C-alpha cells in the first residue's frame, strides 16, 4: 500500500488548460472522491494518475516514486471503468486473470487468485460465463474483480456505478465501502453524484474548471463549504442562499430578511452572533446567508439555545417519507425547509419555524467566498 501525491498537476490540450495546477496529498489507505460536474477535469485527473493521459506539468507520485513517465502497467494501479470495459470475447475468469497473465504469473497461481477474488465478490458460479450473459450488477462485480486480483497499490474508479439502477447502485456502494475497509487500500473515485461522494469518501476534492475548489472530509465540505459553488453542489436539496442586509442589534449583528407570514412580508432578524465571521464592517451591506434545509425546521423540535423561531407561510409541501420539504417565501424567493413528516401533514398555511443560525454559512455576494 502506498500514498499518492499530486503536485501542481497541469493538463493542457494545445492552448486549452483542462487542469490548472492540482495539489492533492493522499495518505496510505485513504479514500479520495473527485467530485464535480462533467467537464470539470476530474476524469482527466484520474486518467493522468492511471497513465492513460500524459502529465503536462507537475508531478504525480505513488509512494515516493514519481510516475509521470511510467507505463500504466508498471504503476501498480488498477482501474474500474464506467462501462466496465470487460473483454467481450473472454470468459469472466479470463477477464479477471488477463492482467496476471500479461505479467507472466504462472497459470496455477492465476487460477488460485481468480478463485479467491471470485469468492470475495460472491461470483464463483459466474467464472465460465461471457460478459454478455451477465446482468449489469454482475458485470460491475467482474470489473471490480479484475481490479482486485492484482492487489495494486492504488485503485482508481471512474464513475463505476453510474450505469446501474438505483437499487443496485446502493448495494454496490456499500460493497465498495466494505472492500475499502477490508483491503485498506488507497482509492481514488470519480463521480458526479454528491451522495456517493459523501458516503464513500474519507476526503472529497471538489473540482470546477480544472481547479480544486475544496479538499476536505465530507463533514467539512458539507458544514463549512468554502464558496457558494461547493455549497450548492453538495447536499440534496441544495443549500438555500438568502440575500440579507447586515444590521446592528443590541447583542451584536443580525441579517435582515423579509419573511412572508400570514400573507404579508415581515422583517425577521437572523442572529449572526453564533457566526465566527466578523461582519462589523458590513453593516448596511448585503451578505448571502447559506442555510441547509435541515437548519430550518419546525419550532419546538430543536429548541437549542441557538435556535430562533418565527412564523412563515408554507407554499408547497413535498413529502419524502421520513421528512417533508416545505417551500417558504423569504425575500420573494423560494426557501426549502425540512420538517419531520408528522408536522407538515397537519399544518398548511402558516407555521412556526426554528432556524439554527449556528449551522449557517455566510458568503460574500461578490466573490461568493465563505466569510469566516
Amino acid at each position, binding site marked *: 500500500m502506498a500514498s499518492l501525491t499530486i503536485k501542481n498537476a497541469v493538463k493542457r490540450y494545445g492552448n486549452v488548460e483542462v487542469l490548472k495546477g492540482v495539489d492533492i496529498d493522499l495518505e496510505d489507505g485513504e479514500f479520495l472522491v473527485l467530485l464535480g460536474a462533467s467537464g470539470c477535469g476530474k476524469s482527466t485527473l484520474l486518467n493522468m494518475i492511471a*497513465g492513460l493521459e500524459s502529465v503536462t506539468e507537475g508531478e504525480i507520485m505513488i509512494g515516493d516514486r514519481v510516475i509521470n513517465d511510467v507505463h*500504466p*502497467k508498471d504503476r501498480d494501479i488498477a482501474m474500474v*471503468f464506467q462501462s*466496465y*470495459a470487460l*473483454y*467481450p470475447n473472454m470468459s469472466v475468469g479470463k477477464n479477471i486473470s488477463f492482467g496476471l497473465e500479461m505479467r507472466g504469473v504462472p497459470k496455477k497461481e492465476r487460477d488460485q487468485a481468480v478463485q479467491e477474488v471470485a469468492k470475495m465478490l460472491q461470483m464463483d458460479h459466474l467464472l465460465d460465463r461471457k460478459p454478455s450473459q451477465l446482468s449489469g450488477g454482475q458485470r460491475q462485480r467482474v470489473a471490480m474483480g*479484475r481490479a482486485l486480483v492484482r492487489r495494486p497499490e492504488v485503485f482508481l474508479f471512474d464513475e463505476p456505478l453510474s450505469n446501474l439502477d438505483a437499487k443496485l447502485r446502493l448495494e454496490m456502494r456499500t460493497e465498495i465501502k466494505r472492500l475499502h475497509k477490508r483491503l485498506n487500500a488507497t482509492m481514488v473515485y470519480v463521480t458526479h453524484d454528491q451522495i456517493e461522494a459523501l458516503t464513500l469518501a474519507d476526503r472529497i476534492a471538489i473540482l470546477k474548471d480544472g481547479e480544486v475548489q475544496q479538499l476536505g472530509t465530507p463533514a467539512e465540505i458539507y458544514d463549512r463549504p468554502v464558496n457558494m459553488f461547493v455549497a450548492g453542489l453538495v447536499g440534496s436539496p441544495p443549500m438555500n442562499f438568502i440575500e440579507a442586509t447586515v444590521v446592528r442589534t443590541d447583542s451584536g449583528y443580525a441579517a435582515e430578511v423579509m419573511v412572508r407570514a400570514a400573507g404579508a412580508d415581515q422583517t425577521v432578524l437572523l442572529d449572526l452572533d453564533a457566526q465566527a465571521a466578523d461582519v462589523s464592517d458590513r453593516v448596511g451591506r448585503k451578505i448571502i446567508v447559506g442555510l441547509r434545509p435541515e437548519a430550518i425546521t419546525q419550532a419546538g423540535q430543536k429548541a437549542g439555545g441557538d435556535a430562533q423561531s418565527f412564523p412563515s407561510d408554507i407554499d408547497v409541501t413535498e413529502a419524502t417519507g421520513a421528512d417533508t420539504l416545505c417551500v417558504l417565501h423569504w425575500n420573494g424567493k423560494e426557501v426549502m425547509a425540512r420538517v419531520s413528516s408528522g408536522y407538515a401533514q397537519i399544518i398548511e398555511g402558516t407555521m412556526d419555524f426554528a432556524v439554527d443560525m449556528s449551522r449557517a454559512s455566510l458568503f460574500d455576494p461578490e466573490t461568493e467566498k465563505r466569510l469566516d
Partner: protein
Amino acid sequence: MSDHTYSPAQGQSVLWMRLLLWALLILFAIWFLLPAYVVVGTSLKDLEEIRGGSLLALPHELNFSAWKHAWNEACIGVRCTGLEPYFWNSVFMALPAVFISTLLGALTGYALTKFQFRGANMIFALILFGCFVPFQVVILPMAQTLGRLGITNTVYGLILVHSVYGLAFTTLFFRNYYVTIPDELVRAATIDGAGFFTIFRRIILPLSPPIIVVSVIWQFTQIWNDFLFGASFTTGGAQPITVAMNNLVNTTTGVKQYNVDMAAALITAAPTLFVYIVAGRYFVRGLTAGSVKG
C-alpha cells in the same frame, strides 16, 4: 396490429393484389435468371445440339465434355492447356492478396482508431482517397514499380498490386468497425499490461469476425474478378483466369465452341459464387453490425 377485418369483397381484392404481386415477382425472377439458365444449359449441350435446337431448350442429357474441355484441353492462344493452370494462378494470387490486405487493413484501422495520434484523421482521409483512384491511373507507375522490383509478369507482382490497391478499402472497413468498439477496452487492457500487438491479437481481433468476412468477400471478389491488372502486368502462363478466359473465348479455330465458352465462364465465376453462398449472410450481418455490447 389493428383489429380491422376485411369484408368479403375487400378480401377478394386483397387476394387479387396478392396474385398480381406474385405473378410480377415470378416474371422478373425468370427475366433475370434466364441468362444464367442459358449459360448453364448451353455448357451442358454438345455443338450438334446447340446448332439444331433452340437456345432455351433443355439439354437432352447432362454432357460435361464442354466443361472438361474448358478445364484442361481448350487452347488459349497457342497453349492448349485449358483453364486449369490459370485457375491456380488466380488462386495463388487471390488468397495471399486477400489475406495480406485484410490483415494490414485491420492493423491500420486499429491504429487509426485506438491509438489516436496527431494527424490520424488526416491520414485516414488520405487513405480513403485511395478508394476513389481508378485502376487505370495507377497502371503506369505500378508497371514501373514492378519492373524495378523485378516481379513483372509474376503472380507475386499481382499479389503486391492487389494488396496495395485493396488497402484503402480494407482500412475503411476496419476503421469504421473499430470506431464502434469502446476505447475503454483498450485502456483497460493497457492497464492490465498488454501492448499494441497483444491488445490487437487478444482483444480486437476476436471481436472482428463480422468485418473480416466483409473484407474477405469484398477483396476476394475484387481480386478474383480483376481483369485490367491481370491483363496489364502479366502475359502467357502467369495470367489470372479472367484474362485466360477472355483469351480462350477469343481464340477460335474453325467452329465457335459456345458450349466451351459457357463452361469456361462458369468455371471462372464459380469461386466468387461459392464465397457468396457460403459467407453471404455473414456479409450482410457484418455490414450492419454496429456497436459491440460488453
